[in-house]
């Protein structure tokens, strides 16, 4: 009964979404406030019914109700409870339900936290969000319903959740990513509302800013979690592989970053509003594209469509409608919101630098998009099968990222409207001098490691210029008044420091990592970098839904025992699926990484032994960026009252 009930709740939610999408929108044009007031209760109602539906699916997983096909395909009585709950979004149908649930949460949050908005605006914003909701609810009900049941031949036992997904990093990666993706729907709805209302004023920017920042923070966290997961589970110590799935989350992130900065110019200087709106639209379209790429099966092959063409085609049509409709509206209405009357700034000014920054971010996005979609295009045209490897992405990303990263240091230091080269040089010569000295020293220590020297220097450049900006700001007033410094400023400083730390981490990690794949017997010892890895012994292992072996490694540095690591090789019984559980000893400056490969006849094993310096800095930098975003999104302006 419960799955049918859940299905019914979803249909009611669809009905509410239809009301929310139509009446308030019409009301906003007819000035009918009763109709407009319907938007809020509908949003809350939708949230309730979708939550009920989602809770029922979770219950089906917890109670091992294998009559529900989706549960039978993705769960198992031996699966630990936490992963049974996470398995709800482990495959296509459930993750779509999660998408819609998160959308309804965001919608209700907009309804709840925008009391100061005029009724017309809120009615339009909620109506647009409801249109998106209708699109996804119809998609779920028509093509990927998670509540379909086996009425006869109910399986006794379910297949298991894909073992790769049985990891805390992955369990919480999709919800975070979706919070980010769907958060851009709010920015999109605000942008479309501005176009419909032909008005984009400072208030609009005030309202929209926190939503964009929070969405961006979730997306950042989602990407960090995904990277951390692939480091341990898939990538063999690689934290980013330019996989299409990773790119799908990185594309909206890039445009979201550009959007945050473009909104800053629009707010401070009343300029580039058209660009801001366009970025909001692109960010959401890329989120949809990301969902489409990851969830339609198109990535494994365009022709995987053939297995279930309705899903892919539905998504493609939906995407097409959203992109075309919003760009058409943009084309027709953008001139009504653009105001270039009092726009005066010099070629060297903070405006130009920020604008250049956002443009470079969009160009990077376009090149990554090209590399991601190109194989699909070729395949769809039956022109052969190709793949675009990570060398392509590195080759286009690194040269384009360098100018942006240099600008991160220059932008905040410069002035609005105009700054002369001489002033800029006066402000920056000291940090520049320090960075050049550092580059010289690094080049002396690590000859011929040019990428390392370049990357670390740029990272230090960002860090030092950001600290310089902070110092300047702090010097301007006595410390008693520091609480008057705006939270946005603190957010900017923290996020930019995060960028610097991330860049240093990436450069050191990419250039100084050491990896050895070796064959070892228990008792043998292998030297990697400054460390000795000794294979101590091997024991048999029986887990809840797997069997395997457990290998113990001692790691010595200069004959001193540093740490002991236990790494496992597991064989999941229900699917005959083997998996290596990696063992990592980490601190701020290096990771020691051990993973088992395959057994040999005489008791030896192939083993991966890696030393990964500074890898934590990459995620630490990402977390700092997120923290900066949260601080800047805060409603309160100052630290004190």
């Amino acid at each position, binding site marked *: 009964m419960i799955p049918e009930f859940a299905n019914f709740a979803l249909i009611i939610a669809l009905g509410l979404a239809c009301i929310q999408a139509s009446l308030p929108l019409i009301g906003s044009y007819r000035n009918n406030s009763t109709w407009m007031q319907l938007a809020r209760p509908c949003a809350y109602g939708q949230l309730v019914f979708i939550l009920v539906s989602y809770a029922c699916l979770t219950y089906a997983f917890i109670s091992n109700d294998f009559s529900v096909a989706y549960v039978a395909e993705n769960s198992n009585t031996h699966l630990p409870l936490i992963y049974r709950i996470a398995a709800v979004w482990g495959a296509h149908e459930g993750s779509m339900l999660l998408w819609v649930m998160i959308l309804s949460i965001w919608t209700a949050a907009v309804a709840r936290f925008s009391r100061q908005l005029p009724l017309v605006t809120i009615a339009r914003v909620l109506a647009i969000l409801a249109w998106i909701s209708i699109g996804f609810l119809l998609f779920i009900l028509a093509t990927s319903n998670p509540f379909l049941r086996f009425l006869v031949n109910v399986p006794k036992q379910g297949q298991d959740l*894909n073992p790769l997904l049985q990891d805390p990093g992955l369990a919480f990666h999709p919800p975070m990513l979706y919070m980010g993706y769907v958060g851009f729907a709010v920015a999109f709805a605000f942008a479309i509302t501005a176009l419909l209302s032909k008005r984009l004023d400072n208030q609009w920017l005030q309202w929209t800013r926190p939503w964009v920042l929070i969405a961006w923070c979730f997306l950042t966290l989602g990407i960090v979690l995904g990277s951390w997961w692939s480091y341990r589970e898939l990538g063999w110590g690689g934290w980013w592989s330019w996989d299409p799935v990773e790119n799908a989350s990185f594309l909206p992130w890039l445009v979201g970053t550009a959007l945050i900065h473009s909104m800053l110019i629009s707010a401070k200087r009343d300029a580039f509003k058209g660009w801001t709106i366009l970025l909001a639209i692109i960010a959401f379209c890329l989120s949809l594209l990301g969902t489409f790429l990851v969830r339609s099966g198109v990535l*494994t*092959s365009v*022709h*995987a469509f053939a297995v279930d063409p309705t899903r892919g085609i539905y998504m493609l049509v939906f995407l097409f409608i959203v992109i075309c409709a919003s760009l058409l509206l943009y084309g027709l209405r953008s001139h009504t919101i653009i105001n270039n009357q009092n726009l005066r700034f*010099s*070629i060297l000014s903070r405006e*130009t630098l920020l604008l*250049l920054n956002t*443009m*470079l971010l969009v*160009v990077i996005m*376009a*090149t990554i998009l*090209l*590399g991601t979609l*190109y194989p699909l295009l070729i395949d769809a045209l039956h022109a*052969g*099968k*190709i*793949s*675009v*490897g990570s*060398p*392509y992405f590195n*080759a*286009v990303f690194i*040269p*384009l990222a360098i100018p942006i990263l240099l600008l991160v240091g220059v932008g905040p230091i410069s002035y609005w409207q105009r700054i002369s080269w001489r002033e800029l040089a006066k402000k920056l010569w000291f940090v520049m001098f320090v960075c050049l000295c550092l580059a010289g020293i690094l080049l002396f220590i690590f000859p011929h490691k040019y990428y390392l020297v370049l990357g670390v220097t740029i990272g230090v450049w960002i860090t030092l210029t950001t600290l310089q900006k902070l110092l300047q700001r702090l010097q301007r007033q006595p410390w008693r008044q520091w609480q008057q410094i705006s939270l946005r400023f603190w957010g900017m400083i923290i996020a930019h420091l995060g960028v610097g730390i991330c860049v240093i981490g990436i450069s050191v990690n990419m250039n100084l990592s050491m990896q050895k*794949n*070796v*064959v070892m017997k228990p008792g043998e010892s292998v030297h990697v970098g400054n460390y000795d890895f000794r294979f101590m012994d091997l024991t048999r292992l029986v887990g809840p839904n797997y069997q395997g072996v457990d290998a113990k490694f001692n790691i010595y540095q200069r004959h001193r025992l540093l740490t002991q690591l236990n790494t496992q090789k597991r064989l999941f019984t229900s*699917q*005959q*699926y*083997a*998996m*290596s559980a990696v063992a990592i000893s980490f601190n701020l400056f290096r990771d020691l990484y051990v993973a088992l*490969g*395959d057994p*040999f*006849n*005489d008791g*030896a094993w*192939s083993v*991966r032994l890696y030393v990964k310096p500074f890898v934590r800095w990459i995620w630490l930098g990402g977390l700092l960026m997120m923290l900066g975003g949260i601080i800047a999104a805060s409603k309160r302006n100052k630290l004190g009252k």
Partner: protein
Amino acid sequence: MNRKRKQRLTFVIIVIAGVSIAVGLALYALNQNINLFYSPSQVIAGLAPKHHQFRIGGLVKLGSIHKSNQHLDVNFIVTDKTHDVVVHYHGILPNLFRAGQGIVVAGKLNSHGIFIADQVLAKHDANYMPPEVKAILGTRS
């Protein structure tokens, strides 16, 4: 030309130059890094490039896996059930690698016609068949 126009023009020129450099870089890099995909039959027929990296997909032939006992060298045969290609790989094979499994290998042919792989891909679950491999086998059965 007044000052403002001049500025605007400079700005537009910078943007256009930037974009064209980016597009140029992208297309050049794309050209260098495309890996074409072939079946073992196409490789035997000599259709695959001689000095360029490419990919082969097929099944690991039963009983063809030979591991060395001291090193990480392994030889195996990739087949599409009509023709075979011998593959040499140095490294740790993926967890899901086994005889009969559908896989994709990336690398180059050497002068003896042996494929020197620097990547062996066998992803996803045990039932998974890389779509390229499925397509190759599908046309034959």
